[in-house]
């Protein structure tokens, strides 16, 4: 790993990836080509319409959104493979919603997703002092669900027909994990 950690830096480091700022330099390095449908599908939880988007636009939107946003970079060569963020943060109730966007198809895999989620939880519980992290995802985003379950999230319910896509209504699932469950 050519990104040696200093004391305290472990909080943003996983096994394969680490979290970094969404700098202008990183945004500029992302491609202008539209993301594949598979990636687009994975990014969108159905709250907004599905439309062609580039990796650069996804990073710009993450940076502009309220909350805490990061790039996901590989430990090996610092390549940016995605962005992730906490939104809908309640500092009173100490909860936040986790959004994950992998922007390179070759890295859209359970181990990278799980490592990114795990590292975001480290940040949430060790640094931001949150109590609950939750994720909304569409029922057929299989890899994301698999990664969430691998990290220890609990499926808390299914909002029936909450999303419309490909001429059909789909359910939206809610996954949550509490600090004490993650720490155990």
């Amino acid at each position, binding site marked *: 790993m050519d990104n040696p950690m200093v004391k305290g830096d472990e909080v943003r480091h996983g096994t394969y990836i680490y979290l970094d700022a969404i700098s202008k330099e990183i945004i500029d390095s992302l491609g202008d080509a539209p993301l594949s449908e598979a990636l687009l599908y994975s990014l969108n939880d159905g709250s907004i319409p599905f439309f062609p988007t580039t990796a650069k636009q996804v990073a710009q939107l993450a940076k502009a959104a309220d909350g805490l946003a990061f790039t996901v970079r590989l430990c090996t060569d610092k390549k940016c493979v995605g962005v992730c963020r906490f939104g809908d943060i309640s500092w009173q*109730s100490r909860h936040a919603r986790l959004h994950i966007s992998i922007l390179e198809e070759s890295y859209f895999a359970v181990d990278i997703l799980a490592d990114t989620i795990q590292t975001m939880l480290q940040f949430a519980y060790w640094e931001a002092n949150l109590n609950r992290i939750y994720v909304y995802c569409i029922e057929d985003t299989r890899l994301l669900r698999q990664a969430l379950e691998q990290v220890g999230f609990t499926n*808390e*319910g299914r909002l029936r027909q909450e999303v419309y896509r490909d001429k059909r209504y789909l359910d939206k699932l809610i996954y949550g994990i509490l600090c004490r469950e993650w720490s155990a």
Partner: protein
Amino acid sequence: MSTIFQSERIYLTPITNDDLPQFAAWLSDFGLQRLVNPGMSVPQDVEELLNPDSWFQSDLKSEKCRMFAIRTLKDNIFIGECGIVNLNMFAHSAEIGINIAHPEYRGKGYGAEAMVLVMRYGFEQLNLNRVSLHVMSFNTRAIRLYEKLGFQVEAREREMFFHDGTYFDQLSMGILRNEWEVIYG
């Protein structure tokens, strides 16, 4: 007269500036807010509600919200508020909320009447496919009412909110158009 916004004992109107002193008082009643507002309660005054940048004015202007005052037909008393929020017109879904805030009108079926009016507005005027709501897990009276009206508990978001030194779960409940049609069609 149209009966879209009218039932046996109540009717729905816009919330007017004349309603704001009463509305602000309800928003400042923490006992009441514990039941209907999952977030942090903050006392409100009329000036704040009239501020163009306030959450209230934003909601009034938002295309994703429809807020109504609930008034009695008999003597035109403002007894609470209800409405639709997070309207998602491409997924044809929305959340609804209700608050029978006037203490003399609670527990007398006015909430159920208002809920049916808002659900009917959602399904029959806005052409929704799904109507949902959130309720705190300790509000068992409200949960029973929503189940009686046809809503199903779909999710329990654990330790979602913190009040009075304790974390509480939030329940998500929903009803689909086909279920609405069976019950109310």
